């Protein structure tokens, strides 16, 4: 908002809905989780749970989205989904990495699949840097880590992707 006013959730949905959904989809890697994440972001905006600093609307939204995403990641780690040890698919989700490696191309679907396989913290850093286009400083603020850590995560994330996409 140019006037520094906190945007309403309707404004966010109407004017930045596509951007918000894109970030949520790149972070979560699937439509269901992306939709849940977008709803959580809009809820936080609506309840005034997020402080607004005048500046880049996209930077602000991606910060909220990433925080909500990582909150959910941490919540799931505390209460892991009960897995059935007898069924290996339940313990280790089927990974598209093998197919991606065979294809060895950089189709967006392949890049997305490889991205979804990255450790969450690396993925968050890579998405904020290369999908959203935030600076290292903005990412450091969003993730509450030093810029040196941001640099390391971005590089490790890209290097892991590179191994999958161009073996």
């Amino acid at each position, binding site marked *: 908002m140019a006037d520094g006013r906190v945007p309403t959730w309707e404004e966010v949905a109407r004017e930045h809905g596509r951007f918000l*959904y894109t970030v949520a989809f790149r972070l979560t890697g699937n439509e269901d989780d992306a939709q849940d994440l977008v709803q959580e972001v*809009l809820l936080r905006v609506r309840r005034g749970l997020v402080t607004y600093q005048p500046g880049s609307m996209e930077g602000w939204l991606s910060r909220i989205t990433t925080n909500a995403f990582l909150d959910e990641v941490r919540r799931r780690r505390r209460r892991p989904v009960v897995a059935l040890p007898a069924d290996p698919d339940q313990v280790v989700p089927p990974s598209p990495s093998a197919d991606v490696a065979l294809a060895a191309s*950089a189709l967006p679907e392949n890049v997305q699949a490889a991205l979804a396989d990255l450790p969450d913290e690396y993925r968050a850093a890579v998405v904020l*840097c*290369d999908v959203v286009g935030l600076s290292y400083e903005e990412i450091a603020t969003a993730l509450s880590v030093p810029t040196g850590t941001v*640099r390391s995560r971005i590089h490790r994330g*890209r*290097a892991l992707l*590179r191994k999958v996409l161009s073996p």
Partner: protein
Amino acid sequence: MSEHLDDRLSALLDGRLDAADEAAARAHVAECPACAAELHAVAATRSWLRALPAVDPPTGFYEHMLGRGRHRMPVGLGVLAAGAAAAIALASMSAPARRVKPTINPLVEDHVVSASLVDDPVAQLSPIVVPTTVFVSTSTTVPPP
């Protein structure tokens, strides 16, 4: 030769090194095939990521959410809305009924003509009355004062 560049390669690509570090990194890449290959590969990965297209939400996703959000209005707003609705209802009750120019009459007349049962012996037992005007009130429950 100095140690491999590792995350300084990404910093180099992102323009995050100061002039001296950048010069040193480029000098290293020039003489280290491993770092040169890694720089090339990471640069390609970076460009693939940056080329990822925007993703559209499913059709009606936000409309549905906004609609649902309105129905789940907080209590305070709900009371305000109820008050506003009551005020509108009161206003419409006190407003005089007005005669509107009916656009429905030609249609009724057309229908009467096209559905004419003049030659039908049963219909002739009960003559059809053609309305000449249609009165439309702004309120169907409250008669005009």
